[in-house]
């Protein structure tokens, strides 16, 4: 366990003194951290502003857009959620896998990421890590999704470059590749 040097000590008012801070263990993308944060800080704020993990993006900050989606295990096996809605300390002792855990450690892209590139499913990019995270979760649980199932699984992710057609096509391509019938 390594204590992380706060990359942005001025974050959101700091910790407001010792009474307002919480300290807990959190493993992010395989690295164990000891986090000290304000008691009401979101998991997204801790990831981005305290740990410098910038894969999850701040979009709407209230659970509408999915740009902050990560896979988190809060003692219940793990699933994809909006990290902006989770009080960070509820993840004490838990693990978080961001988009950095989906690709290879050397920057290699996953099949879903490759499909997003191949299908032109990325425009400005702020929504992409959330989409790839949600799409990867879908294909891990349902390797042969229908178009309707893909749209339902991505309902919580917004793209404001209007790229849904290419994104759905990318998930279909990734599914075919993964099944080996490309």
């Amino acid at each position, binding site marked *: 366990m390594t204590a992380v040097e706060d990359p942005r000590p001025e974050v959101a008012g700091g910790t407001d003194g010792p009474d*307002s801070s919480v300290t807990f263990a959190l493993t992010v993308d395989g690295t164990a951290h000891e986090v000290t944060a304000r008691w009401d800080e979101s998991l997204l704020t801790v990831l981005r502003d305290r740990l410098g993990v910038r894969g999850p993006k701040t979009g709407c900050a209230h659970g509408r857009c999915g740009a902050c989606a990560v896979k988190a295990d809060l003692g219940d096996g793990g699933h994809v959620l909006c990290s902006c809605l989770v009080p960070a*300390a509820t993840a004490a002792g838990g693990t978080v896998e961001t988009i950095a855990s989906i690709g290879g450690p050397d920057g290699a892209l996953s099949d879903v990421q490759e499909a997003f590139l191949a299908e032109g499913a990325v425009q400005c990019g702020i929504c992409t890590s959330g989409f790839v995270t949600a799409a990867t979760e879908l294909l891990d649980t349902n390797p042969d999704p229908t178009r309707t199932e893909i749209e339902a699984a991505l309902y919580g992710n917004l793209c404001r470059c209007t790229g849904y057609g290419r994104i759905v096509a990318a998930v279909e391509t990734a599914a075919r590749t993964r099944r080996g019938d490309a």
Partner: protein
Amino acid sequence: MLLEAPRFVLPETLAEALAARAERPEAVVVAGGTEVMPDLLWRNRTAAGFLSLRRVAALRGTTTDGGDLVIGAGTPVAALTTAPDGGLRAAASSLGTPLVRTEATIGGNVVSALPYRNLLPTLLAGGATLELTSAAGTRVVPFDGFVTAPGVTGLREGELLTAVRLPAHVGFADYAKVGRRNAQFVATVSAAVVSRDGVARLAFGNAGPIPLRSDAVDTAATALLDGQATADDLRSTVAAAVDPPEDAVASADYRRHALGVLAVRLVTRAAVDAGLGS
């Protein structure tokens, strides 16, 4: 306790949670955080601290007991999208987004007690009861009457909502809502129906300050189900029974009209399900 700080406590067992509730009456009880976190962000509320129920495993999951579906208060809404009850399933499936439903809980939906909350009409139409637990024990109260004003409930000091009990029924149950758009919307108004043995029971959301049902509406709904009354009869009975709010989203008149439309829609579906209509 998984974590205990001056302004944050993270119990792992119900006993720890109840002890923390008694010791920290000022703390906001938070489960999934899907409502509380945006409220804090937008300064819709202040909080002196959090009592998080997120890691109390005993509050999560669904069982059956003597004909009741017993839903732990910490059960995520995502788990209810495949519930055997059609009304619960429809209400859960139209709440937020898949990423929100994995964390939002039935307990948070009930205790937050706002008139547009998705699950409330379904629980009222279905005759749900609530398990309220404190260090002194558990009492079971009807959901009907639990909400006393928007955001206000009959939860007493030191108590936590621990489970929602919904009678399992052979029959038809459904839920419908309308909003200002077709995606990710909060209900302008909503309605739920339960129909069994030829009797229909309706409940409404955002039809008044608290979840609303009325014997007159159920009589008219049952008559429509039976072909003894017209859709107009039910619409006018609903219009007389409801007292919807007027706000920036919709006028009271619009809501009164839309509640009648939803009532007729749901009773028609129930009639089709029972082979009585088409």
